[in-house]
Protein backbone atom coordinates (compact mmCIF):
# COMPACT_ATOMS: atom_id res chain seq x y z
CA UNK A 1 0.00 0.00 0.00
CA UNK A 2 1.44 3.35 -1.05
CA UNK A 3 1.45 5.52 2.04
CA UNK A 4 2.06 8.73 0.18
CA UNK A 5 -0.77 8.03 -2.23
CA UNK A 6 -3.11 7.41 0.68
CA UNK A 7 -2.06 10.64 2.36
CA UNK A 8 -2.72 12.57 -0.84
CA UNK A 9 -6.28 11.38 -0.85
CA UNK A 10 -6.94 12.44 2.74
CA UNK A 11 -7.95 15.95 3.73
CA UNK A 12 -4.82 17.42 5.29
CA UNK A 13 -4.63 19.49 8.45
CA UNK A 14 -3.48 22.36 6.30
CA UNK A 15 -6.61 22.33 4.19
CA UNK A 16 -8.78 22.31 7.29
CA UNK A 17 -6.84 25.27 8.67
CA UNK A 18 -7.17 26.95 5.31
CA UNK A 19 -10.94 26.57 5.26
CA UNK A 20 -11.28 27.93 8.74
CA UNK A 21 -8.94 30.84 8.08
CA UNK A 22 -10.73 31.82 4.96
CA UNK A 23 -14.06 31.83 6.75
CA UNK A 24 -12.67 33.85 9.65
CA UNK A 25 -11.13 36.53 7.47
CA UNK A 26 -14.15 36.74 5.23
CA UNK A 27 -16.39 37.23 8.26
CA UNK A 28 -14.22 40.10 9.43
CA UNK A 29 -14.61 41.77 6.07
CA UNK A 30 -18.34 41.05 6.00
CA UNK A 31 -18.68 42.61 9.44
CA UNK A 32 -17.18 45.87 8.23
CA UNK A 33 -19.47 45.93 5.21
CA UNK A 34 -22.41 45.17 7.46
CA UNK A 35 -21.50 48.13 9.66
CA UNK A 36 -21.60 50.46 6.67
CA UNK A 37 -25.02 49.22 5.68
CA UNK A 38 -26.24 49.52 9.27
CA UNK A 39 -25.07 53.12 9.41
CA UNK A 40 -26.94 53.99 6.27
CA UNK A 41 -29.99 52.05 7.32
CA UNK A 42 -30.23 53.53 10.80
CA UNK A 43 -29.57 57.10 9.84
CA UNK A 44 -31.87 56.91 6.82
CA UNK A 45 -34.70 55.25 8.72
CA UNK A 46 -34.70 58.11 11.24
CA UNK A 47 -33.97 60.81 8.75
CA UNK A 48 -36.75 59.78 6.38
CA UNK A 49 -39.29 59.66 9.19
CA UNK A 50 -39.45 63.46 9.06
CA UNK A 51 -40.92 63.21 5.60
CA UNK A 52 -42.90 59.99 5.82
CA UNK A 53 -44.18 60.05 9.39
CA UNK A 54 -44.28 63.73 10.14
CA UNK A 55 -45.21 64.53 6.56
CA UNK A 56 -42.88 67.45 6.23
CA UNK A 57 -42.53 68.53 2.65
CA UNK A 58 -39.02 67.80 1.37
CA UNK A 59 -38.81 71.06 -0.48
CA UNK A 60 -39.93 73.14 2.46
CA UNK A 61 -37.37 71.29 4.57
CA UNK A 62 -34.56 72.16 2.19
CA UNK A 63 -35.63 75.70 1.46
CA UNK A 64 -37.25 76.79 4.72
CA UNK A 65 -35.33 79.34 6.73
CA UNK A 66 -36.95 78.90 10.11
CA UNK A 67 -35.59 76.15 12.36
CA UNK A 68 -37.39 75.52 15.56
CA UNK A 69 -38.86 72.06 15.14
CA UNK A 70 -40.99 72.08 18.29
CA UNK A 71 -43.08 75.03 17.19
CA UNK A 72 -45.03 76.19 14.20
CA UNK A 73 -43.48 78.65 11.80
CA UNK A 74 -45.04 81.79 10.39
CA UNK A 75 -46.72 79.72 7.67
CA UNK A 76 -48.51 77.52 10.19
CA UNK A 77 -46.30 74.52 9.40
CA UNK A 78 -43.72 73.08 11.81
CA UNK A 79 -40.63 75.22 11.61
CA UNK A 80 -38.18 72.74 10.13
CA UNK A 81 -36.37 74.79 7.50
CA UNK A 82 -32.84 73.51 7.18
CA UNK A 83 -31.61 76.11 4.73
CA UNK A 84 -29.62 78.16 7.29
CA UNK A 85 -27.58 75.14 8.29
CA UNK A 86 -27.15 73.95 4.73
CA UNK A 87 -25.97 77.39 3.68
CA UNK A 88 -23.70 77.59 6.71
CA UNK A 89 -22.09 74.24 5.97
CA UNK A 90 -21.50 75.03 2.33
CA UNK A 91 -20.24 78.53 3.05
CA UNK A 92 -17.56 77.55 5.52
CA UNK A 93 -16.56 74.58 3.37
CA UNK A 94 -16.15 76.63 0.23
CA UNK A 95 -14.54 79.60 1.96
CA UNK A 96 -12.03 77.52 3.86
CA UNK A 97 -11.16 75.52 0.73
CA UNK A 98 -10.73 78.73 -1.28
CA UNK A 99 -8.47 80.10 1.41
CA UNK A 100 -6.48 76.92 1.98
CA UNK A 101 -5.90 75.88 -1.63
CA UNK A 102 -3.38 78.58 -2.66
CA UNK A 103 -1.47 78.21 0.59
CA UNK A 104 -1.46 74.45 0.44
CA UNK A 105 -0.41 74.27 -3.20
CA UNK A 106 2.18 76.99 -2.76
CA UNK A 107 3.69 75.16 0.17
CA UNK A 108 3.54 71.86 -1.64
CA UNK A 109 5.32 73.35 -4.65
CA UNK A 110 7.91 74.83 -2.33
CA UNK A 111 8.58 71.56 -0.58
CA UNK A 112 8.77 69.45 -3.73
CA UNK A 113 10.20 71.82 -6.36
CA UNK A 114 11.99 74.73 -4.75
CA UNK A 115 13.61 73.29 -1.70
CA UNK A 116 13.09 69.54 -1.54
CA UNK A 117 15.70 69.16 1.19
CA UNK A 118 14.03 71.57 3.58
CA UNK A 119 10.70 70.18 2.45
CA UNK A 120 11.63 66.69 3.45
CA UNK A 121 13.41 67.70 6.65
CA UNK A 122 11.04 70.29 8.12
CA UNK A 123 7.81 70.85 6.24
CA UNK A 124 6.85 67.25 5.64
CA UNK A 125 7.15 66.08 9.24
CA UNK A 126 5.45 69.22 10.54
CA UNK A 127 2.47 68.91 8.21
CA UNK A 128 2.14 65.21 8.82
CA UNK A 129 2.17 65.84 12.52
CA UNK A 130 -0.45 68.55 12.30
CA UNK A 131 -2.77 66.25 10.36
CA UNK A 132 -3.04 64.32 13.60
CA UNK A 133 -3.97 67.19 15.90
CA UNK A 134 -7.40 66.59 17.44
CA UNK A 135 -10.16 68.84 16.20
CA UNK A 136 -11.17 69.99 19.69
CA UNK A 137 -7.74 71.53 20.00
CA UNK A 138 -8.39 73.52 16.85
CA UNK A 139 -11.74 74.51 18.31
CA UNK A 140 -10.16 75.62 21.56
CA UNK A 141 -7.59 77.76 19.80
CA UNK A 142 -10.34 79.15 17.60
CA UNK A 143 -12.21 80.17 20.70
CA UNK A 144 -9.17 81.71 22.37
CA UNK A 145 -7.48 83.34 19.40
CA UNK A 146 -9.63 83.48 16.28
CA UNK A 147 -12.92 84.63 17.78
CA UNK A 148 -11.40 87.60 19.69
CA UNK A 149 -9.33 88.48 16.63
CA UNK A 150 -12.41 88.55 14.39
CA UNK A 151 -14.37 90.48 17.00
CA UNK A 152 -11.69 93.14 17.31
CA UNK A 153 -11.00 93.39 13.60
CA UNK A 154 -14.40 93.01 11.99
CA UNK A 155 -16.76 93.80 14.84
CA UNK A 156 -19.74 91.75 15.93
CA UNK A 157 -19.52 88.98 18.48
CA UNK A 158 -16.68 87.28 16.68
CA UNK A 159 -18.68 84.10 16.33
CA UNK A 160 -19.74 83.25 12.80
CA UNK A 161 -18.83 82.00 9.36
CA UNK A 162 -15.56 83.89 9.26
CA UNK A 163 -14.22 82.37 12.46
CA UNK A 164 -15.36 78.95 11.31
CA UNK A 165 -13.58 79.51 8.02
CA UNK A 166 -10.32 80.44 9.71
CA UNK A 167 -10.42 77.45 12.01
CA UNK A 168 -11.18 75.05 9.18
CA UNK A 169 -8.53 76.70 7.02
CA UNK A 170 -5.83 75.85 9.52
CA UNK A 171 -7.35 72.47 10.12
CA UNK A 172 -7.42 71.27 6.51
CA UNK A 173 -4.21 73.03 5.51
CA UNK A 174 -1.87 70.20 6.57
CA UNK A 175 -4.01 67.53 4.88
CA UNK A 176 -4.34 69.39 1.61
CA UNK A 177 -0.67 70.33 1.65
CA UNK A 178 0.67 66.87 2.20
CA UNK A 179 -1.71 65.32 -0.34
CA UNK A 180 -0.78 67.97 -2.91
CA UNK A 181 2.88 67.32 -2.26
CA UNK A 182 2.25 63.63 -2.92
CA UNK A 183 0.59 64.55 -6.20
CA UNK A 184 3.54 66.71 -7.23
CA UNK A 185 6.04 64.05 -6.24
CA UNK A 186 4.21 61.59 -8.44
CA UNK A 187 4.98 63.67 -11.53
CA UNK A 188 7.84 61.83 -13.26
CA UNK A 189 11.26 63.42 -13.01
CA UNK A 190 11.81 63.43 -16.76
CA UNK A 191 8.91 65.85 -17.29
CA UNK A 192 10.92 68.46 -15.44
CA UNK A 193 14.19 67.53 -17.04
CA UNK A 194 12.69 67.69 -20.52
CA UNK A 195 11.20 71.11 -19.86
CA UNK A 196 14.36 72.53 -18.30
CA UNK A 197 16.42 71.11 -21.16
CA UNK A 198 14.25 73.06 -23.57
CA UNK A 199 15.37 76.23 -21.85
CA UNK A 200 12.31 76.89 -19.70
CA UNK A 201 12.89 78.60 -16.35
CA UNK A 202 12.08 76.77 -13.17
CA UNK A 203 8.86 78.67 -12.71
CA UNK A 204 7.79 78.01 -16.30
CA UNK A 205 8.51 74.34 -15.74
CA UNK A 206 6.51 74.29 -12.55
CA UNK A 207 3.63 76.26 -13.93
CA UNK A 208 3.34 74.81 -17.41
CA UNK A 209 4.44 71.24 -16.82
CA UNK A 210 4.49 70.05 -13.24
CA UNK A 211 1.36 71.75 -11.93
CA UNK A 212 -0.54 70.78 -15.02
CA UNK A 213 0.42 67.13 -14.71
CA UNK A 214 -0.51 67.13 -11.04
CA UNK A 215 -3.94 68.73 -11.43
CA UNK A 216 -6.01 65.58 -10.76
CA UNK A 217 -4.01 64.78 -7.64
CA UNK A 218 -4.27 68.30 -6.30
CA UNK A 219 -7.98 68.46 -7.04
CA UNK A 220 -8.39 65.27 -5.07
CA UNK A 221 -6.48 66.86 -2.22
CA UNK A 222 -8.76 69.90 -2.22
CA UNK A 223 -11.96 67.86 -2.41
CA UNK A 224 -10.63 65.72 0.39
CA UNK A 225 -10.08 68.84 2.44
CA UNK A 226 -13.59 70.03 1.63
CA UNK A 227 -15.06 66.72 2.72
CA UNK A 228 -13.21 67.04 5.98
CA UNK A 229 -14.39 70.63 6.44
CA UNK A 230 -17.98 69.75 5.66
CA UNK A 231 -18.03 66.93 8.17
CA UNK A 232 -16.11 68.64 10.95
CA UNK A 233 -18.34 69.07 13.96
CA UNK A 234 -16.82 70.21 17.22
CA UNK A 235 -14.20 72.69 16.10
CA UNK A 236 -16.83 74.50 14.05
CA UNK A 237 -19.53 74.24 16.66
CA UNK A 238 -17.25 75.97 19.16
CA UNK A 239 -16.72 79.11 17.07
CA UNK A 240 -19.72 79.56 14.80
CA UNK A 241 -22.25 80.82 17.31
CA UNK A 242 -24.90 78.22 16.57
CA UNK A 243 -27.71 80.60 15.66
CA UNK A 244 -30.12 78.91 13.27
CA UNK A 245 -30.43 81.99 11.11
CA UNK A 246 -29.49 82.55 7.54
CA UNK A 247 -26.12 84.30 7.78
CA UNK A 248 -26.40 87.95 6.70
CA UNK A 249 -22.70 88.46 6.74
CA UNK A 250 -19.60 86.53 7.65
CA UNK A 251 -19.38 87.79 11.20
CA UNK A 252 -22.87 87.17 12.51
CA UNK A 253 -23.56 83.98 14.45
CA UNK A 254 -24.60 81.16 12.16
CA UNK A 255 -24.72 77.39 12.24
CA UNK A 256 -23.86 74.29 10.26
CA UNK A 257 -25.46 70.89 9.92
CA UNK A 258 -22.87 69.38 12.22
CA UNK A 259 -23.04 72.09 14.85
CA UNK A 260 -26.82 71.87 15.22
CA UNK A 261 -26.58 68.09 15.32
CA UNK A 262 -24.05 68.05 18.12
CA UNK A 263 -26.04 70.57 20.10
CA UNK A 264 -29.44 69.05 19.52
CA UNK A 265 -29.39 65.27 19.59
CA UNK A 266 -29.01 65.07 23.34
CA UNK A 267 -31.80 67.54 24.02
CA UNK A 268 -34.59 65.97 22.01
CA UNK A 269 -36.76 62.95 22.58
CA UNK A 270 -36.31 59.95 20.30
CA UNK A 271 -39.10 59.70 17.78
CA UNK A 272 -40.32 63.26 18.14
CA UNK A 273 -40.36 65.61 15.18
CA UNK A 274 -37.58 67.65 16.77
CA UNK A 275 -35.46 64.54 16.89
CA UNK A 276 -36.38 63.21 13.45
CA UNK A 277 -35.60 66.55 11.87
CA UNK A 278 -32.10 66.35 13.32
CA UNK A 279 -31.64 62.92 11.79
CA UNK A 280 -32.66 64.39 8.48
CA UNK A 281 -29.74 66.78 8.86
CA UNK A 282 -27.50 63.80 9.59
CA UNK A 283 -28.78 62.20 6.43
CA UNK A 284 -27.77 65.24 4.41
CA UNK A 285 -24.31 64.93 5.93
CA UNK A 286 -24.17 61.29 4.96
CA UNK A 287 -25.25 62.01 1.40
CA UNK A 288 -22.75 64.83 1.06
CA UNK A 289 -20.00 62.55 2.27
CA UNK A 290 -21.03 60.06 -0.43
CA UNK A 291 -21.01 62.86 -2.93
CA UNK A 292 -17.47 63.96 -2.07
CA UNK A 293 -16.43 60.34 -2.35
CA UNK A 294 -17.91 60.10 -5.82
CA UNK A 295 -16.18 63.29 -6.90
CA UNK A 296 -12.82 61.98 -5.69
CA UNK A 297 -13.39 58.75 -7.57
CA UNK A 298 -14.39 60.59 -10.68
CA UNK A 299 -11.28 62.77 -10.57
CA UNK A 300 -9.16 59.71 -9.97
CA UNK A 301 -10.58 57.93 -12.99
CA UNK A 302 -10.26 61.00 -15.19
CA UNK A 303 -6.66 61.46 -14.06
CA UNK A 304 -5.82 57.89 -14.95
CA UNK A 305 -7.31 58.29 -18.42
CA UNK A 306 -5.35 61.47 -18.99
CA UNK A 307 -2.11 59.83 -17.97
CA UNK A 308 -2.66 56.89 -20.24
CA UNK A 309 -3.17 59.09 -23.24
Amino acid at each position, binding site marked *: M*DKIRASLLKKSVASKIERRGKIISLSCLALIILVVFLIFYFVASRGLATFFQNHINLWSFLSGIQWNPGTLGTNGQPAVGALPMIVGSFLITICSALLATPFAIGTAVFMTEISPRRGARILRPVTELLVGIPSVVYGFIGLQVVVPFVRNTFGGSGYGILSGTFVLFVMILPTVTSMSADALNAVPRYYREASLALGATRWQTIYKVVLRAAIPGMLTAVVFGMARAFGEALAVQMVIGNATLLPHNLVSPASTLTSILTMGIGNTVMGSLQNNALWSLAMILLLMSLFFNLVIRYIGRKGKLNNER
Partner: protein
Amino acid sequence: MQNENMETTQRNIMHFDPKAHEIALSTEDLRVFYGQSEAISEGDLQFERYKISSLIGPSGSGKSTFLRSLNRMNDRIATVKGKIMYRGLDINSDEVDVYEMRRHIGMVFQRPNPFAKSIYENIAFALRQRGLNDKHKLDEIVETSLRQAAMWDQVKDDLNKSALALSGGQQQRLCIARAIAVKPDILLLDEPASALDPVSTSQVEDTLLELKQNYTIIIVTHNMQQASRISDYTAFFNLGKVLEYAETGDIFTNPKVDLTNDYISGNFG
Protein backbone atom coordinates in the same frame (compact mmCIF):
# COMPACT_ATOMS: atom_id res chain seq x y z
CA MET B 1 5.80 21.41 -42.50
CA GLN B 2 3.49 21.51 -39.54
CA ASN B 3 3.01 17.79 -39.74
CA GLU B 4 6.65 17.00 -40.04
CA ASN B 5 7.38 19.05 -36.98
CA MET B 6 4.86 17.12 -34.95
CA GLU B 7 6.42 13.84 -35.92
CA THR B 8 9.96 14.79 -35.11
CA THR B 9 8.80 16.09 -31.80
CA GLN B 10 7.21 12.80 -30.93
CA ARG B 11 10.23 10.79 -31.99
CA ASN B 12 12.69 12.81 -30.02
CA ILE B 13 10.98 12.53 -26.70
CA MET B 14 12.07 9.57 -24.73
CA HIS B 15 9.53 7.38 -23.00
CA PHE B 16 10.59 4.90 -20.38
CA ASP B 17 9.80 1.28 -20.37
CA PRO B 18 7.71 0.98 -17.21
CA LYS B 19 9.16 -2.43 -16.45
CA ALA B 20 12.74 -1.24 -16.35
CA HIS B 21 12.28 2.22 -14.85
CA GLU B 22 10.24 3.51 -11.99
CA ILE B 23 8.51 6.72 -12.97
CA ALA B 24 8.12 9.26 -10.19
CA LEU B 25 6.22 11.92 -12.06
CA SER B 26 4.89 12.33 -15.56
CA THR B 27 3.01 14.87 -17.59
CA GLU B 28 0.60 14.10 -20.38
CA ASP B 29 -0.50 16.71 -22.92
CA LEU B 30 0.33 19.50 -20.52
CA ARG B 31 -0.78 22.94 -21.65
CA VAL B 32 -0.47 26.08 -19.56
CA PHE B 33 -2.08 29.43 -20.23
CA TYR B 34 -1.48 32.85 -18.72
CA GLY B 35 -4.85 34.39 -19.44
CA GLN B 36 -5.21 33.93 -23.18
CA SER B 37 -1.58 33.40 -24.00
CA GLU B 38 -0.23 29.89 -24.10
CA ALA B 39 3.09 29.44 -22.32
CA ILE B 40 3.32 25.65 -22.59
CA SER B 41 1.69 24.09 -25.60
CA GLU B 42 3.26 20.65 -25.60
CA GLY B 43 4.61 18.94 -22.58
CA ASP B 44 4.85 15.21 -22.39
CA LEU B 45 7.61 14.16 -20.05
CA GLN B 46 8.38 11.33 -17.66
CA PHE B 47 10.76 11.68 -14.78
CA GLU B 48 12.52 8.66 -13.43
CA ARG B 49 12.75 8.00 -9.74
CA TYR B 50 16.03 8.82 -7.96
CA LYS B 51 17.48 10.53 -10.99
CA ILE B 52 18.28 14.10 -11.78
CA SER B 53 16.48 15.48 -14.81
CA SER B 54 17.34 18.91 -16.06
CA LEU B 55 15.25 21.28 -18.11
CA ILE B 56 17.18 23.53 -20.43
CA GLY B 57 16.19 26.04 -23.07
CA PRO B 58 16.29 29.70 -23.98
CA SER B 59 14.83 32.40 -21.79
CA GLY B 60 11.05 32.56 -22.00
CA SER B 61 10.74 29.04 -23.36
CA GLY B 62 8.50 28.02 -20.49
CA LYS B 63 10.82 26.05 -18.23
CA SER B 64 9.74 27.82 -15.07
CA THR B 65 6.12 27.65 -16.09
CA PHE B 66 6.44 23.93 -16.63
CA LEU B 67 8.26 23.35 -13.37
CA ARG B 68 5.86 25.45 -11.33
CA SER B 69 2.94 23.47 -12.71
CA LEU B 70 4.41 20.29 -11.30
CA ASN B 71 3.49 21.20 -7.72
CA ARG B 72 0.66 23.57 -8.55
CA MET B 73 2.59 26.72 -7.75
CA ASN B 74 0.74 28.29 -10.67
CA ASP B 75 -2.69 27.65 -9.19
CA ARG B 76 -3.99 31.20 -9.07
CA ILE B 77 -1.74 32.55 -11.79
CA ALA B 78 -2.21 30.26 -14.77
CA THR B 79 -4.64 27.72 -16.19
CA VAL B 80 -3.23 24.22 -16.46
CA LYS B 81 -4.68 21.61 -18.81
CA GLY B 82 -3.67 18.00 -19.32
CA LYS B 83 -2.48 15.56 -16.71
CA ILE B 84 0.29 15.53 -14.17
CA MET B 85 0.49 12.03 -12.77
CA TYR B 86 2.06 11.36 -9.40
CA ARG B 87 1.60 8.04 -7.65
CA GLY B 88 -1.23 7.16 -9.96
CA LEU B 89 -3.13 10.37 -9.26
CA ASP B 90 -3.56 13.50 -11.29
CA ILE B 91 -2.36 16.20 -8.92
CA ASN B 92 -4.83 18.67 -10.35
CA SER B 93 -7.83 16.51 -9.60
CA ASP B 94 -10.15 17.41 -6.74
CA GLU B 95 -9.41 14.26 -4.77
CA VAL B 96 -5.77 15.24 -4.27
CA ASP B 97 -5.02 17.47 -1.30
CA VAL B 98 -2.84 20.22 -2.69
CA TYR B 99 -1.01 20.99 0.58
CA GLU B 100 -0.18 17.36 1.21
CA MET B 101 0.98 17.03 -2.40
CA ARG B 102 3.35 19.98 -2.01
CA ARG B 103 4.93 18.35 1.01
CA HIS B 104 5.96 15.52 -1.27
CA ILE B 105 6.85 17.68 -4.23
CA GLY B 106 8.98 20.48 -2.83
CA MET B 107 10.47 23.46 -4.61
CA VAL B 108 13.47 25.76 -4.48
CA PHE B 109 13.23 29.05 -6.32
CA GLN B 110 15.58 31.06 -8.46
CA ARG B 111 15.85 33.97 -6.04
CA PRO B 112 16.59 32.83 -2.51
CA ASN B 113 13.53 33.54 -0.36
CA PRO B 114 14.26 32.77 3.26
CA PHE B 115 11.62 33.76 5.80
CA ALA B 116 12.26 36.83 7.93
CA LYS B 117 13.00 34.50 10.82
CA SER B 118 16.07 32.92 12.37
CA ILE B 119 18.05 30.31 10.46
CA TYR B 120 16.78 27.66 12.84
CA GLU B 121 13.18 28.77 12.50
CA ASN B 122 13.40 28.82 8.72
CA ILE B 123 13.87 25.08 8.81
CA ALA B 124 11.91 24.14 11.90
CA PHE B 125 8.90 26.28 11.15
CA ALA B 126 7.10 24.09 8.61
CA LEU B 127 7.79 20.98 10.66
CA ARG B 128 6.37 22.53 13.78
CA GLN B 129 3.39 23.68 11.82
CA ARG B 130 2.68 20.06 11.01
CA GLY B 131 2.79 19.10 14.66
CA LEU B 132 6.43 18.18 15.24
CA ASN B 133 7.26 19.84 18.54
CA ASP B 134 9.95 17.55 19.92
CA LYS B 135 12.87 19.92 20.43
CA HIS B 136 15.38 17.10 20.19
CA LYS B 137 13.97 15.86 16.90
CA LEU B 138 13.81 19.36 15.49
CA ASP B 139 17.43 20.05 16.39
CA GLU B 140 18.41 16.87 14.67
CA ILE B 141 16.50 17.63 11.48
CA VAL B 142 17.84 21.17 11.38
CA GLU B 143 21.35 19.84 11.65
CA THR B 144 21.02 17.11 9.01
CA SER B 145 19.27 19.40 6.58
CA LEU B 146 21.92 22.05 6.94
CA ARG B 147 24.63 19.42 6.58
CA GLN B 148 23.04 18.08 3.43
CA ALA B 149 22.92 21.61 2.05
CA ALA B 150 26.64 21.93 2.86
CA MET B 151 26.33 24.85 5.22
CA TRP B 152 26.19 23.40 8.69
CA ASP B 153 29.77 24.31 9.50
CA GLN B 154 29.24 27.91 8.48
CA VAL B 155 26.14 28.59 10.51
CA LYS B 156 26.08 26.13 13.37
CA ASP B 157 26.98 28.86 15.87
CA ASP B 158 24.54 31.40 14.44
CA LEU B 159 21.34 29.41 14.28
CA ASN B 160 19.40 32.15 16.05
CA LYS B 161 20.58 34.86 13.70
CA SER B 162 18.16 36.26 11.16
CA ALA B 163 18.32 34.38 7.88
CA LEU B 164 18.16 37.71 6.06
CA ALA B 165 21.64 38.53 7.34
CA LEU B 166 23.15 35.64 5.35
CA SER B 167 24.85 36.09 2.00
CA GLY B 168 22.91 35.28 -1.17
CA GLY B 169 24.62 31.93 -1.63
CA GLN B 170 24.07 30.97 1.99
CA GLN B 171 20.44 32.01 1.75
CA GLN B 172 19.93 29.76 -1.24
CA ARG B 173 21.48 26.80 0.49
CA LEU B 174 19.31 27.53 3.48
CA CYS B 175 16.32 27.37 1.15
CA ILE B 176 17.48 23.99 -0.08
CA ALA B 177 17.91 22.83 3.49
CA ARG B 178 14.44 24.10 4.29
CA ALA B 179 12.96 22.23 1.34
CA ILE B 180 14.59 18.93 2.20
CA ALA B 181 13.79 19.23 5.88
CA VAL B 182 10.19 18.25 5.20
CA LYS B 183 11.52 15.13 3.42
CA PRO B 184 9.85 15.50 0.07
CA ASP B 185 9.70 12.76 -2.48
CA ILE B 186 10.50 14.98 -5.44
CA LEU B 187 12.50 18.17 -5.39
CA LEU B 188 11.93 20.85 -8.03
CA LEU B 189 14.64 23.48 -8.42
CA ASP B 190 14.39 26.55 -10.62
CA GLU B 191 17.89 27.77 -11.47
CA PRO B 192 18.96 27.32 -7.86
CA ALA B 193 22.57 28.24 -8.55
CA SER B 194 22.09 31.32 -10.65
CA ALA B 195 22.70 33.60 -7.68
CA LEU B 196 25.71 31.70 -6.39
CA ASP B 197 29.46 32.00 -6.83
CA PRO B 198 31.34 29.06 -8.42
CA VAL B 199 32.37 27.56 -5.09
CA SER B 200 28.86 27.54 -3.67
CA THR B 201 27.57 26.33 -7.00
CA SER B 202 29.74 23.28 -6.95
CA GLN B 203 28.75 22.70 -3.33
CA VAL B 204 25.11 22.82 -4.30
CA GLU B 205 25.80 20.43 -7.16
CA ASP B 206 27.51 18.02 -4.79
CA THR B 207 24.52 18.34 -2.53
CA LEU B 208 22.16 17.45 -5.34
CA LEU B 209 24.22 14.46 -6.38
CA GLU B 210 24.11 13.23 -2.83
CA LEU B 211 20.41 13.88 -2.46
CA LYS B 212 19.77 11.83 -5.59
CA GLN B 213 19.99 8.68 -3.53
CA ASN B 214 16.75 9.53 -1.79
CA TYR B 215 15.10 12.12 -3.96
CA THR B 216 13.86 12.54 -7.48
CA ILE B 217 15.23 15.85 -8.68
CA ILE B 218 14.04 18.06 -11.51
CA ILE B 219 16.16 21.13 -12.08
CA VAL B 220 15.91 24.08 -14.44
CA THR B 221 19.29 25.45 -15.42
CA HIS B 222 20.88 27.82 -17.88
CA ASN B 223 24.26 26.36 -17.21
CA MET B 224 25.07 23.68 -19.78
CA GLN B 225 28.06 22.38 -17.84
CA GLN B 226 25.88 22.01 -14.82
CA ALA B 227 23.27 20.10 -16.73
CA SER B 228 25.82 17.76 -18.23
CA ARG B 229 27.70 17.34 -14.94
CA ILE B 230 24.85 16.40 -12.69
CA SER B 231 21.82 15.28 -14.63
CA ASP B 232 20.87 11.85 -15.92
CA TYR B 233 18.27 13.12 -18.36
CA THR B 234 17.84 16.42 -20.09
CA ALA B 235 14.83 18.04 -21.73
CA PHE B 236 15.22 20.89 -24.19
CA PHE B 237 12.46 23.50 -24.23
CA ASN B 238 11.75 26.02 -26.93
CA LEU B 239 8.76 28.31 -27.36
CA GLY B 240 6.62 26.40 -24.93
CA LYS B 241 7.36 22.99 -26.39
CA VAL B 242 9.64 20.16 -25.35
CA LEU B 243 11.66 19.54 -28.49
CA GLU B 244 13.92 16.84 -27.22
CA TYR B 245 14.23 14.65 -24.15
CA ALA B 246 16.92 12.04 -23.77
CA GLU B 247 19.75 10.79 -21.61
CA THR B 248 22.05 13.67 -20.87
CA GLY B 249 25.01 12.01 -22.52
CA ASP B 250 23.07 11.55 -25.73
CA ILE B 251 21.67 15.02 -25.82
CA PHE B 252 25.01 16.70 -25.35
CA THR B 253 27.01 14.50 -27.70
CA ASN B 254 24.44 13.57 -30.25
CA PRO B 255 21.39 15.81 -30.30
CA LYS B 256 18.72 14.75 -32.74
CA VAL B 257 17.12 18.15 -33.19
CA ASP B 258 19.05 20.94 -34.87
CA LEU B 259 17.79 23.56 -32.47
CA THR B 260 19.04 21.56 -29.52
CA ASN B 261 22.41 21.35 -31.11
CA ASP B 262 22.43 25.09 -31.78
CA TYR B 263 21.42 25.83 -28.24
CA ILE B 264 23.94 23.66 -26.44
CA SER B 265 26.75 24.70 -28.70
CA GLY B 266 25.91 28.34 -28.08
CA ASN B 267 24.84 29.18 -31.64
CA PHE B 268 21.30 29.89 -30.74
CA GLY B 269 19.29 32.72 -32.20
